């Protein structure tokens, strides 16, 4: 019966899939191809000029370095805090549903609202942070946060950690709750310490969820644009300029679309390589 049904409608799946594929080809694949042709032109001349220019562009290399610093620092903090919170709320805690729901508020905010929120918090004149510090007698003269070259990077990283730790927490908590009770009972019978149980039972079983959440966060951090653009516009000077911001500036402020396209392929290659590494780990994990 099944076989007959499938045969009768053998054209149907293609008809159902075709519109979606057409839209994605037109708006994802065609733009990429278009972008390649743009990146291969300097003015009217075809060539690799935009790509060779990358290696000697100090701004590009600095933006690259900023992106890595930002990604590594934010990822580390978000992971450790998110894991800690997930372990904390995996206990029997009264009102857990309420806590879980409220902890999610930061990550649901539109990036632009998160930026408004933190501009208000960090404002040197009337921000809640400096206001509170002044109140307890700390001199805030030099604490201009997003306006200070030394503190700007720290500020944008802190805002990212504030907004996205809840996401790491949420995925890891779901992972923890999917772990069955049996291995814990076995560990208890063996007389394992809490650290041993965590190290040899929880962590290995949580590894797939950890890898997925690290993969998703890494991809987002490497391409970060919204928060930084809205908090500092890459400044002061060039202090918080990341790859995505530099590409944006090149394309939409200097109208050098060819060079912007070339840089965007470097970013694309970078995120691809890193995601392939993660996915290899994941596959290895699910086979083991």
């Amino acid at each position, binding site marked *: *019966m099944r076989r007959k049904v*499938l045969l009768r409608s053998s054209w149907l*799946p*293609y008809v*159902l*899939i075709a519109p*979606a*594929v057409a*839209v*994605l080809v*037109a*708006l*994802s694949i065609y*733009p*990429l191809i*278009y*972008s390649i042709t*743009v990146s291969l032109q300097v003015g009217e001349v075809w060539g690799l000029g935009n790509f060779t220019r990358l290696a000697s562009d100090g701004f590009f290399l600095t933006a690259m370095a900023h992106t890595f610093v930002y990604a590594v620092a934010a990822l580390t903090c978000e992971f450790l805090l998110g894991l800690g919170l997930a372990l*904390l709320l995996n*206990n029997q*805690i009264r009102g857990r549903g309420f*806590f*879980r729901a409220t*902890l*999610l*508020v930061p990550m*649901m*905010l*539109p*990036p*632009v*609202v998160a*930026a408004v*929120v933190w501009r*208000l918090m960090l404002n040197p*004149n*009337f921000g*809640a942070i400096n206001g509170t510090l002044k*109140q307890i007698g700390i001199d805030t003269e030099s604490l201009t946060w997003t306006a200070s070259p030394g503190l700007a990077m720290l500020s944008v990283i802190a805002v990212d950690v*504030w907004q996205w730790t*809840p996401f790491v927490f*949420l*995925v890891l908590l779901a992972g923890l709750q999917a772990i069955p009770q049996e291995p814990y009972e076995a560990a208890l019978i063996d007389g394992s310490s809490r650290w041993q149980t965590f190290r040899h039972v929880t962590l290995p079983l949580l590894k797939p969820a950890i890898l*997925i959440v690290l993969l*998703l966060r890494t*991809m987002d951090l490497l391409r970060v*644009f*919204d928060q930084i653009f809205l908090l500092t516009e890459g400044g002061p000077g060039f202090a918080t300029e990341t*790859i*995505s911001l530099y*590409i*944006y500036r090149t*394309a*939409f402020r200097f109208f050098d*679309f060819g060079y912007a*396209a070339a840089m965007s392929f470097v970013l*694309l290659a970078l*995120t*691809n390589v890193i*995601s392939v590494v993660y996915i290899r780990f994941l596959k290895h994990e699910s086979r083991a």
Partner: protein
Amino acid sequence: MSRALKYFLVVVALVAALAPVYWMFTISLKSEVDHFALPPPWFNFTPTLEHYFEAFVARSFGQYLITSAIVAVISTLCALVLGTLAAYALARFRLPYDLDRRLSLWILSTRMFPAIVTAVPLFLMMRDLRLLDTKASLIIVYTAFNLPFVVWMMRGFFDEVPRDLEEAALVDGDSRLGALVRVVLPLVAPGLAATAVFCLIVSWNEFLFALVLTQTDASMTLPVGIAGRVTQYEIKWGVMSAAGAVAIVPILVFAMAMQKYLVRGLSLGAVKG
């Protein structure tokens, strides 16, 4: 760890998550004089709605709000229709050459491009098509942006529906599409609703494409409208906070309504929560 310490840490996390947002609400409700008061007034101030009136009546934020809603709703509907049909086919049919699995992965991979990579060519394409600074350009881009997500989520929900039910309908003489509409769709309705809410939130929050593709009040969405004020020199903090507060409301309502599916949606179905 003692019980008291656990609760203390959880409360600290809650305050850290919420206090900044609450601070913005207070700014939106304070008169300008109170903005600069020291120590910062968290609770004692006389609330006023003047900034809300200025933002949504005297300035164009009301119009941005409507544009945001139109773009989010239409692009979500388009993505849902196209994506659900494709997801059903990918969940139910085995295509030759492993095509169903490969197509699914390819569709997912289009979602992985960094936004700035497609923003540059999409700007040039929309310029060529004379669609810059129109709502249509945003609707088109958001539809494509949400489509992989819909396919991936809905494929997961279809997989969970037992095939026997449909086969029974087919034996009773229903067509494939008839079985989809009458038997399967009602069963995946909660999943469909959750997927729709996700698309709405993504479109509502989206910033980069809206920044690149719109220029005037005619097509500006709320995020770009607010951002225009954020980056100006003389900043109207009260007005901005009022607009921000209003932008949050639909998001919070939706997010609370579909908490159950949040993890699955945010991890693209990789973790079933």
